[in-house]
């Protein structure tokens, strides 16, 4: 744990000395980084750098071997996935994972932060607050017209937006998006960047992305990962001109 104890109160997310080892292979190796509230941070790096694993560790899908993840002063490494969600961390996966059998409305409703226990889900009623929240989010993610369509009928890009919407309705303080524009058309990319700009007005966002154009569009700061460690960190211009980054990732 090379980094000294931080004053993690100032940061929304403080990752310190995070290490995970799969059968001796350290996918993430003594990683530390800090997120300010309302920051958009993009993690880039070559394949196998451990970007997705970092998101997995924060949301609890993978358990850390050592290190700490403090979110709003709360230690996340000891919590279960659903408890991490309830503390305000939302995670979008790389491939769109929406409930295809349910309608867009129902997809959003399921994610509405109420009635999450077995009894709560039995007693849950679709009241005006729920309907308003769903309509609100649907507008943000450009899906107002298809609320009654089954999610299976949506295009790839729309599914990605729906999944982002499912996170938004949970009102998380931190949104983690894994390659949100992968497989999207140019028009959809533009719209997604626009969507992210709206979202970041009141969320902190952590994005893993390959598309440098898109990264440049949205990022406040960029963290470059390589072999489980931070290679470089700073503004997009800073990392783009960093010789180490050019060497391992961007190419000459």
């Amino acid at each position: 744990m090379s980094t000294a104890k931080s004053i993690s109160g100032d940061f929304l997310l403080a990752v310190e000395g995070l290490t995970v080892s799969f059968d001796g292979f350290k996918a993430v190796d003594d990683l530390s980084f800090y997120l300010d509230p309302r920051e958009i941070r993009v993690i880039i790096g070559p394949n196998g750098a451990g970007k997705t694993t970092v998101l997995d560790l924060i949301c609890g899908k993978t358990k850390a071997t050592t290190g700490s993840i403090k979110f709003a002063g709360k230690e996340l490494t000891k919590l279960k996935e659903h408890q991490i969600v309830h503390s305000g961390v939302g995670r979008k996966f790389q491939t769109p994972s929406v409930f295809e059998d349910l309608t867009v409305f129902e997809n959003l409703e399921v994610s509405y932060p109420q009635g999450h226990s077995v009894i709560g889900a039995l007693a849950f009623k679709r009241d005006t607050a729920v309907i308003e929240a769903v309509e609100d989010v649907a507008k943000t993610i450009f899906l107002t017209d298809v609320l009654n369509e089954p999610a299976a009928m949506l295009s790839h890009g729309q599914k990605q937006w729906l999944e982002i919407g499912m996170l938004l309705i949970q009102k998380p303080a931190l949104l983690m998006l894994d390659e949100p524009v992968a497989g999207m058309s140019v028009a959809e990319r533009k719209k997604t960047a626009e969507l992210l700009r709206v979202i970041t007005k009141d969320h902190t966002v952590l994005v893993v992305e390959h598309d440098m154009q898109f990264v440049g569009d949205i990022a406040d700061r960029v963290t470059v990962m390589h072999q489980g460690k931070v290679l470089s960190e700073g503004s997009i211009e800073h990392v783009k001109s960093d010789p180490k980054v050019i060497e391992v990732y961007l190419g000459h």
Partner: protein
Amino acid sequence: MKHSSLMKWFVSREGLYYLALAFLLVVLLPLTLDSFRLNMVGKYLTYAFVAIGLVMCWGKAGILSLGQGVFFGLGGYCMAMFLKLEASTPEATAIQSTPGIPDFMDWNQLTELPWFWEPFHSFSFTLLAVIGVPVLLAFVIGIAMFTRRVGGVYFAIITQAIAAVLTILIIGQQGYTGGVNGITDLQTLMGWDIRTDEARNILYFICVGMLFLCLFAARLVQNRKLGRILVAMNAQEMRVRFSGYDVAAFKIFVFCLAAAFAGIGGALFTLLVGFMSPSFIGIVASIEMVIFCALGGRLSILGAVYGALLVNAAKSGFSESFPELWPFAMGALFIGVVLAFPDGLAGLYKSYVMPLENKVFKRNKSKTAPVATRQTAEKVDDYSPMNDTYSPEKS
């Protein structure tokens, strides 16, 4: 308000399906069948309880249990223990070396009633145990498996192993359980002779009543958000987990629900058939229960009832004429279902009969209510509680 919405439900298409089943079970079959055959239908219906549980557990939530016979058997044994104690009065068992205990205990040189038999002197305890014992076991299995994220094939194999273990345990502990013969020679329920035709008819109707209670309970679960979570969990477990749900708790719940239904079915089986034995709870019996559910349609609780009725009727019919061929017919049936119509009878109904129904409904609509707008007509036609469509005017 409440009353009128109930009436509306009865004339909705879903309500009519329930009415049709009620008509079949309450009017048609009792009028056309003799007491012996009606009792057999009652016996088939007790398996429908298990099949409904499997629809919720396997069809909806994707948890395949090959050990539902365990819960059916536990419910059945609880009821059998009560009835056996009632039949084993000191007067009735005066010729035994220890009068007042069940006959098979006496044959196995037991001289006093085992402690776990004692509470079954009480009928109210027995009723609690019929549901409580299966649910408790399901809860323990659920905690052990689902919190460790054991699922799919591994879970199915473990449930099957539990069915095998319970059968071996019951057969091995002859003095406590009646062994391979089971608990037999049951006579009265609180002094009421359950072996007469009249009593059996009454028990049949109790069974039908309980079946509808369970159907409505299952329907309630499936129409609430809880039901949507179960379906969602089946397809995208990870997304449900990262939407803030404790997936294990939901799995434990639905597994316990299925166990409760199976326990009720088992207790009614004991009452209708008059004995309980390990052959009804083992691996073969448990797999047959899955076939009832698969044939009826693993996504439809009503389909499961028809599946249990039809497969059992076929089994009886076949076994009466060609007893040795039944296992092959059953196997062929299962393979046929899986290959040709994976959604079972309910699926076939949906794709072949429902379009016809739609035509009839539409024609009736235009005759009886020519002024009805297109929108209202559509609402009745497409009535389905799962897809209770959202429309902005609701708010």
